[in-house]
């Protein structure tokens, strides 16, 4: 049984309500931070904890906070990125829906550390009902003196506002989010300047994921050093994983990053194995934009070592043989799934969600989608596979924001690891409409050359 920090109290009845949350020890971190620590000390604790951004990129949160420019007389903002729209990721939704006060508590402490008196939660438009939950939690917190003017008599003022997005995936990119929050078209900004210098309304801004901000609560409660002891290496603390696909128990799990991928998929505590006794074919371990891995490379690294559920181990081998922790959207594909179709579905998503601002992403995502559809429908050519590879290569790294990379990586990984399945589609244009390529060799042990 792993350590639980965020979801420890998730199953307490009515934890959604303030009274229950407070009775279970909620808002202790606010008392501790505001009464005994200076804002810089809070930042220092977060730095010590080694907490990495939970939104996908895994950038150390404490470092991000320390980059925040602090010019005199200019307001600073903290914005919570709750625009969770990555296919396969639904951890923030769970957190906000069932323990909204944990996020509010984390936001108050973080706002104190960063000196933000107006803090925004930018929430995905489709999470309409969660807005009500959050606003109720904010009202409860305010009624009990945790928000508003002169909190706990410390002279710190803070208000939290919830802003709904309008259904664009791109608004999860931090600068597009800020544009949208300002009431403009959600186009990502060109960086530099980074939000830490010029963010919301041109003021220094920190944008953090929901889970990152919630994790500040246990960090302050237990101290940064204690928090850093959980997990391994630079993957400290606990991580929420939203598991879905062909598994027996889809859902949100909190892991302490010490378990292996195999244990996560097959143990009854977590995913409970592949549904209907099928065999594992492939997995996208960190949300739709990270590279897909075949079963053999998922469970063992290219060096033949066991792969663990943490930042370093999942990215072991780089993009050639590894993947990424990403946002923790764990998508499992069994032997009956078609990788070509899966790749097409993802490409369609990115084509639809591209903001259209810069040319490689706007034109390239649509092109990839069309080619993938024709391969999927048995109308592809062998040269299309190389063409796809070339297109993704010309998108990656050449765009304003990471959406271009996110669209290119799944296609690249699918061709890299499942090229024979693409070729089978081309060579069997009729068969591929009625049959599946199946598992084939994708779960075979990989030959490890002796060093």
């Amino acid at each position, binding site marked *: 049984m792993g350590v639980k920090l965020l979801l420890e109290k998730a199953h307490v009845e009515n934890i959604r309500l303030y009274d229950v949350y407070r009775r279970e020890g909620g808002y202790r971190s606010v008392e501790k931070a505001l009464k005994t620590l200076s804002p810089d000390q809070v930042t220092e604790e977060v730095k010590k904890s080694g907490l990495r951004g939970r939104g996908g990129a895994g950038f150390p949160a404490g470092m991000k906070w320390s980059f925040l420019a602090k010019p005199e007389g200019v307001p600073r903002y903290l914005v919570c990125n709750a625009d969770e729209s990555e296919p396969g990721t639904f951890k923030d939704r769970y957190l906000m829906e069932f323990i909204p006060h944990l996020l509010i508590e984390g936001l108050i402490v973080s706002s104190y550390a960063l000196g933000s008196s107006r803090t925004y939660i930018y929430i995905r438009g489709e999470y309409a009902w969660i807005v009500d939950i959050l606003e109720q939690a904010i009202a409860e917190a305010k009624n009990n003196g945790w928000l508003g003017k002169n909190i706990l008599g410390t002279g710190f003022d803070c208000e939290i506002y919830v802003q709904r997005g309008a259904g*664009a995936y*791109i608004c999860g990119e931090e600068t597009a989010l800020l544009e949208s929050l300002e009431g403009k*078209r959600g186009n990502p900004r*060109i960086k530099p300047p980074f939000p830490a210098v010029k963010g919301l309304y041109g003021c220094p801004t920190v944008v953090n994921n929901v889970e990152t901000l919630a994790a500040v609560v246990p960090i302050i409660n237990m101290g940064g050093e204690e928090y850093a002891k959980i997990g391994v290496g630079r993957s400290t603390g606990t991580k929420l994983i939203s598991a879905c696909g062909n598994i027996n128990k889809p859902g949100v799990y909190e892991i302490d990053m010490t378990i292996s991928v195999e244990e996560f998929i097959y143990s009854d505590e977590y995913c409970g194995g592949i549904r209907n006794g099928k065999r594992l074919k492939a997995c996208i371990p960190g949300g739709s934009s990270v590279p897909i891995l075949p079963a053999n490379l998922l469970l063992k690294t290219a060096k033949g070592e066991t792969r663990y559920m943490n930042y370093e181990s999942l990215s072991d081998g780089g993009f050639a043989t590894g993947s990424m922790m990403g946002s923790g959207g764990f998508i499992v594909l069994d032997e009956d799934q078609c990788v070509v179709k899966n790749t097409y579905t993802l490409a369609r998503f990115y*084509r*639809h*969600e*591209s*903001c*259209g*601002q*810069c*040319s*490689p992403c*706007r*034109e*390239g*995502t*649509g*092109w990839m989608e*069309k080619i993938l559809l024709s391969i999927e429908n048995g109308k592809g050519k062998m040269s299309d596979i190389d*063409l796809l590879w070339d297109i993704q*290569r*010309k998108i990656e*790294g*050449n*765009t*304003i924001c990471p959406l271009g990379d996110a669209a290119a990586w799944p296609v690249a990984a699918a061709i890299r690891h499942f090229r024979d399945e693409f070729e089978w589609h081309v060579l069997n244009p009729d068969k591929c409409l009625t049959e599946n390529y199946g598992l084939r060799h994708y779960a075979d042990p990989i030959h490890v050359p002796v060093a």
Partner: protein
Amino acid sequence: MAEEKKLFKVTIDNITIEVEPGTSILNAARKIGGDVVPPAMCYYSKLKDSGGKCRTCLVRVAAGSTADPRPMPKLVASCRTNVMDGMIVENITSPAVQEARKGVVEFLLINHPLDCPICDQAGECHLQDLSYEHGAESTRYEFNRRTFKKHDLGPYIQLHMTRCILCYRCVFTADQVTNKRVHGVLDRGDHSEIATYIEKNLNNDFIGNVIDVCPVGALTDKTFRFKNRVWFTKPVDAHRNCDKCCGEVQLWMRGDEVFRVTARKDEYGEIKDSSKGSTGWICNECRFEKKNASDWVIEGLSNISRHSVISQGKYPGLVKPNETVVEVMNGHAPRLMMNIHSVSEVNKPEIELSKIAGPAHSSDFNSNNA
């Protein structure tokens, strides 16, 4: 004594130049000029916040600065990246940049209709120049090209959304030059489009400038539409007293007829500064209503780059070469070409060539067939 301003030393394709801090890589390259200047489809120096979108100006930064000589991990948009002291930039000397630029040109062209033969912009189109210099000779795109629902932008401006490359220049122009913006970008991704919401007409004194900033034929002049090819017209600089704008324009003439009026442009296709020092935006009245030569004071031929198709046969001070035929023919004047068919006994003049189906063969003149 005033303190001397510190200049930044930047090396682009092995050419070193000193520029003021805050200069973008692109503008530093433009100071050097020539082949090291990256192409720019969306950046427009006269429009604040423009650039960064088309990605044709991508360059490689091989060393960030003297203080931090690490290379930048990705190619950067030179129009939106400022130089640092000691920065080393690779444009045409980097194969990666050339490869990426070729990719961008391909992306820009896959959904472009390539209807140059009927497009009014042909001859002065930046996308034509770009694809001529950096593009591939054929396309790998095998699907239907994107089309849009037509929007009417009023009596002066023609919008061809299919040709648009979404550079946003017109949006910035409408934002910054006119006092009220009535058009912008709708929708997103590959179906995003420049449009006015609910077919609202653009009626602003300076909105005509969107035609000049458009790098392609997406926004063209309705009063010039299909009237003439630009390379048949003669560009001359002219001015008039206008109470709305600087009144300094370029007339595109044929004989005494004024076909089109535009602002004056520099070598990068950007509107030049007027003699008063501000950007030479012109008003709709000058652009669309003053189509008589008598409305203008003509200053003389515009200077057009000799590499442009527009400059064909319009060099100022052109010297006609001497006639050499007489000399090589020992003093005989050249004879006029004659229709030998009518005088030749060989090819039966009674056979009318136009009545033969297809090209004439010897059998057509065979006496048996006659």
